[in-house]
């Protein structure tokens, strides 16, 4: 799809407003052209000395009347045309955010936050400017230009043609420069994105930067990136900076031609002195369209570059979306089957998961253990389709999950990710999200994860605002909040990624006890590094380098799987030592 189609709907939607605005603009342009006419009459009358004060007053009032009408129409076009550009801005930003929300996790592994932010603010602003001022300047240029040329021809054809000789040069230069500008604008915007991303990282990682005394290096790196940005800007300005003066030069050249030839013609009485002055006025009127051409070109170039960048995001298809005829489901029983599942991350040569087979009956608990990087989190992410399998398939209640509506699939699953993410807002909001839940239920669930007392210890209780990413809370508190969030959902499938890694042993065993109670109603999958959290599971699998090295219940794995047995014994010994 071409980028321009992104903004078309808004033009269609506000076509009446646009039409009205354009009419106002054209009215303004035509009325404006009358002012030099009146001035011409005044001059001609004064040259011939055939005018009295009353007639002068009449002319003066005429001009003022025109000016007031122009003023009213001006308000009209500003409101309508520039208003439309604001509408485009709003719409584009909405669709960008709506689209970003549909993009799959793999996209965000590659995309940079700062980059995306720049798209939603700067680039959209550029598009807005191009749309608003672009329409205005373009219409202005065409209407004013055409009308001024018309009037000039009316006065003297020959002079008009000669005076307009610099015009084709302007078009030539405009094309030449705009080509150059397009590339340069993209570079500048790219450099700005880098800058933004660099700043973001510098602030987000502040603790590590401070702990490792990296301020100097980060500053140096930032300085380089900032310098790079300057370089790009200066390169661009070499073009844009010469563009306007060249436009003025050409328009002044026209004036020189009028001065010379028009002057001669007046002297030789081919045209009147009033014609001559009016001609100069019209050339003055032409200056703006000529410059506008330049301005419009650069504005539009910048806008198009930005629109292209936005379009690139909007054109990124969500890797994961409903297939045509996707099945909608109400509530599954909760059986989960992995059939020969293999998964590659795009950036990696080796598979994160290879040939994984799992069968899990409804209401059972599956435990997943394995060394870091063995693919445990990846495996969990495949179930709610944060990523799609590369080979094989995953079945829920016997249906390939890719044939289900994504939204319905995810509605079956409560998921607790490994790293707790909180939104800036109250604790309460972070736990219940958009679920309908009563307060007693909220209290019950927070008590289950040993969070209630902690929350009560805050002066504002559940209404405490957690700050961006839950900055005021400890890791364990955050973990328990997201755990409560997952446990609160009454859905058939519960997925927990290392749920008790950051809570103390006492709380941990309380939570595990609670989970065992839930099992009959929910299919539960738990990834944990603490084997005590999964030893009671109905089925346990051991992953290593994306392969299942062993599976069975605790007792079986103790027999058959070296890693499991070793790790368990190790932890057991620790526990025994602790007990002694």
């Amino acid at each position, binding site marked *: 799809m071409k980028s321009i189609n992104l903004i078309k709907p808004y033009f269609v939607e506000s076509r009446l407003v646009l039409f009205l605005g354009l009419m106002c603009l054209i009215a303004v342009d035509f009325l404006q052209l009358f*002012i030099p006419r009146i*001035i011409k009459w005044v*001059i001609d009358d004064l*040259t011939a000395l055939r005018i009295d004060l009353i007639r*002068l007053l009449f*002319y003066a009032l005429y*001009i003022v009347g025109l000016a007031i009408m*122009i003023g009213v129409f*001006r308000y009209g076009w*500003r409101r309508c045309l520039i208003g439309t550009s604001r509408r485009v801005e709003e719409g584009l*930003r909405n669709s960008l*955010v709506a689209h*970003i*929300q549909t993009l799959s*996790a793999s996209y*965000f592994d*590659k995309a940079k936050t*700062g980059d*995306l*932010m720049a798209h939603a603010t*700067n680039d959209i602003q550029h598009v807005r400017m191009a749309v608003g001022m672009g329409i205005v300047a373009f219409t202005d240029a065409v209407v004013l230009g055409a009308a001024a040329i018309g009037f000039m021809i009316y006065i003297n054809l020959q002079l008009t043609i000669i005076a307009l000789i610099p015009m084709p040069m302007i078009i030539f230069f405009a094309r030449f420069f705009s080509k150059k500008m397009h590339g340069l604008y993209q570079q500048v915007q790219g450099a700005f994105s880098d*800058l*933004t*991303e660099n*700043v973001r990282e510098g602030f987000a990682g*502040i*603790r590590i930067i401070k702990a*490792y005394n990296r301020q100097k290096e980060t*500053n140096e790196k930032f300085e380089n990136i900032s310098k790079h940005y*300057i370089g790009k800007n*200066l390169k661009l300005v070499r073009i844009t900076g010469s563009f*306007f003066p060249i436009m003025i030069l050409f328009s002044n*050249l026209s004036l020189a031609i009028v*001065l010379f030839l028009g002057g001669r013609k*007046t*002297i030789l009485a081919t045209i009147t*002195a009033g014609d001559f*002055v009016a001609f100069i006025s019209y050339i003055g009127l032409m200056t703006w369209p000529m410059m506008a051409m330049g301005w419009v070109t650069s504005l539009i170039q910048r806008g198009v570059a930005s629109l292209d960048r936005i379009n690139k995001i909007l054109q990124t298809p969500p890797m994961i979306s409903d297939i045509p005829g996707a099945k909608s489901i109400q509530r599954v029983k909760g059986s989960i089957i992995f059939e020969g599942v293999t998964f590659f991350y795009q*950036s*990696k*040569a080796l598979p994160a998961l290879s040939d994984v087979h799992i069968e899990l009956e409804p209401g059972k608990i599956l435990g997943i253990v394995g*060394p870091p990087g063995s693919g445990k989190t990846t495996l969990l992410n495949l179930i*709610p389709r*944060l990523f799609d399998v590369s080979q094989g398939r995953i079945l829920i209640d016997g249906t390939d999950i890719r044939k289900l509506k994504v939204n319905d699939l995810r509605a079956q699953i409560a998921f607790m990710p490994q*790293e707790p993410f909180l939104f800036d807002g109250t604790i309460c909001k972070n736990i219940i999200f*958009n679920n309908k839940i009563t307060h007693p239920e909220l209290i019950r669930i927070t008590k289950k994860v040993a969070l209630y007392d902690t929350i009560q*210890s805050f002066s504002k209780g559940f209404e405490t605002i957690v*700050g*961006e990413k839950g900055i005021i809370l*400890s*890791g364990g508190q955050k973990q328990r909040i997201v755990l409560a969030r997952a446990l609160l959902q009454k859905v058939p499938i519960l997925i927990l990624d290392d749920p008790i*890694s*950051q*809570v103390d*042993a006492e709380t941990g065993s309380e939570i595990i006890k609670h989970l065992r109670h839930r099992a009959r109603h929910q299919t539960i999958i738990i990834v944990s*590094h603490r084997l005590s959290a999964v030893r009671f599971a109905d089925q346990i699998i051991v992953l290593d380098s994306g392969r299942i090295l062993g599976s069975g219940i605790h007792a079986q794995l103790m027999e058959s799987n070296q890693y499991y047995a070793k790790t368990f014994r*190790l932890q057991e010994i*620790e*526990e025994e030592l602790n*007990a002694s």
Partner: protein
Amino acid sequence: MHHDFGYFEEESLGKPYDFKLLKRLYPFFRPYKLLLSCSVLLVVFITLLDLSIPYITRIAIDRYIVPKMNSADNISPESKSRYLRVDISEAEIRKIVSKYPDLFKTGRNFAEIPLNKLATLEKKELAVLRIEDLSGVSLITTVFIFIIIAHFGFNFLQVMLMEYTGQMIMHELRLRLFSHIQSLSVPFFSRNPVGRLVTRVTNDVQNMHELFTSVITFVFKDLFLLIGIAGVLLGFNWKLALISFAILPFVLYTSIYFSGQAREAFRDLRIKIAEINTNLSETIGGIKIIQLFRLEKENYNNFKKLNHENYLAGMRQIHVFAVFMPVIEIFGVVAIAIVIFYGGGSVIAGTISLGTLVAFISYMKMFFRPIRDIAEKYNIMQNAMASAERIFLILDNSEKLPKSIPLMESKLKFGLPIKDKIREVAFEDVSFSYVDGENVLKNIHFKIAMGESVAIVGPTGSGKTTLVNLIMRFYKPTSGRVLFNGVPIDEIEILSLRSKIALVAQEPFLFTTSIRDNIAQGNRKISEKRMEQILADSNCKTFIDKLPNGLETTLSEGGGALSSGERQLISIARAFARDPDLILLDEATSYIDSETERKIQEALSNLTKNRTAIIVAHRLSTARSADRIICLHRGRIIETGTHDELMQCRGFYYRLNQLQNL
């Protein structure tokens, strides 16, 4: 909304004191004084050239194109009209004059022909009669062309010069702001969302681009133009000039009124954009959660609401401008109408020439452009000033925020450098609270000697991480002191202190650079051999070897496709590369399986030889291997001692151990 946590309240920014702000910006301009002066000088030239253009037209008209009114020595005074007077001493002219005896009135050595009769002559004859006028027009056109070429050259030079200067000033400002924010201590970052700080360094500085590149010179240019035009007009005809200036007070009043309105509109817009940015960065950061919990709709609606508010603010701004610009335009035309009426009258009365009137009209048109510009630029200025204000608010931060905000760290650089190894770390009656009245640590008192490893255990939220933060001096104790080698931490140069400490934080933060850089942290002295050793010690070798680019793999934001265990391992390798006196491990083991952990424990025990280690431990096995264990509970030390001691006294630690067995 966010006010509870000391975020900048964007809404409550007072009226900007432009002059004060400009004064504060001055130091950034100072290094570029020469360039700026050149630029201003160029602007003066450009303005003079601008002004000369209508002036040339006037000369062309009055001197060559339209003959003067010859009223004084008019041969035919009965009818007031324009005549062309020619010298009849030249033979050719005499011939033409004699050809049309009814048109010419002949004097002693000149002849006169009414202007309106000129058209009846043949072109060739006219050319002969007005040869001087024609060559005059040629001459003046030549001058004009030189002027416009010079105009072009100056313009280009000025734009380049100004852009360079502007970019350099912005660069300095960005650097200053970036390094200042980085030098602020950690609580500042807890209070201010990253998105907002990023906006300060990028968009707010960018916002001042026009101030630096066009506004400053344009203001000069516009002022010159205004003064210049006023001067020229007064010189032409002071009476006419003064009468046409009668409109100025209205213009002034309108400009002031509207710039006030525009300022409000701009401010609203900026606040909305900042809110949009914060919301957006959260959407991107929390995308998985949004998708998993199907919050798309709700989040989108929130965003849409914000975005629509931004739209409305935009429309308000459009309204302000849509009223202002035409009103000024109308004033401009009214001034021209005055010139036409009064000036036209003067032309009839013969007090001014027609050329003067034409020039007057041209200048009048030029006169209102700068007024409109200044008003518009004033608004851009306001916009830039609003940004400048926010920037300075951050640059001033160290003094302005309330109590619990610590001093800027740069001030701490003046402390004593710590020359020796860290021999001892001591907490003396330390209490700490993030929020007033909610103490996270209470009267913490302990000493750790060189080579000792101390485990801190306790339930979540008991203050373990906070304790580590105080040692790193990310935060300042609310009361009590933290001492290194007996010296209070406030008196120690912070950089030299931190260079002796390695921190492995709870959530590994990796930079978007190669794995090598992430480990070496800019330390180029690390040899290939040592790097190999570090990778082996930290158990990174196996997985890094599996990556196609190995150590040179560039990590995407936040570590991307690495598992959190692998990222944790890299952050441990980072600590190894540091070769520190003191190691702070904050739950570093929580994402790592027992096997890897065991290897790390070995490596750590090597590393902790002759070094001090403070380990925030969740697993009691970690605590067991420590020389000493400190049990924290609700911010207090409730037990301390070796594992055996604590097990014997059958207290809190013993109970924790019992629970682990269930």
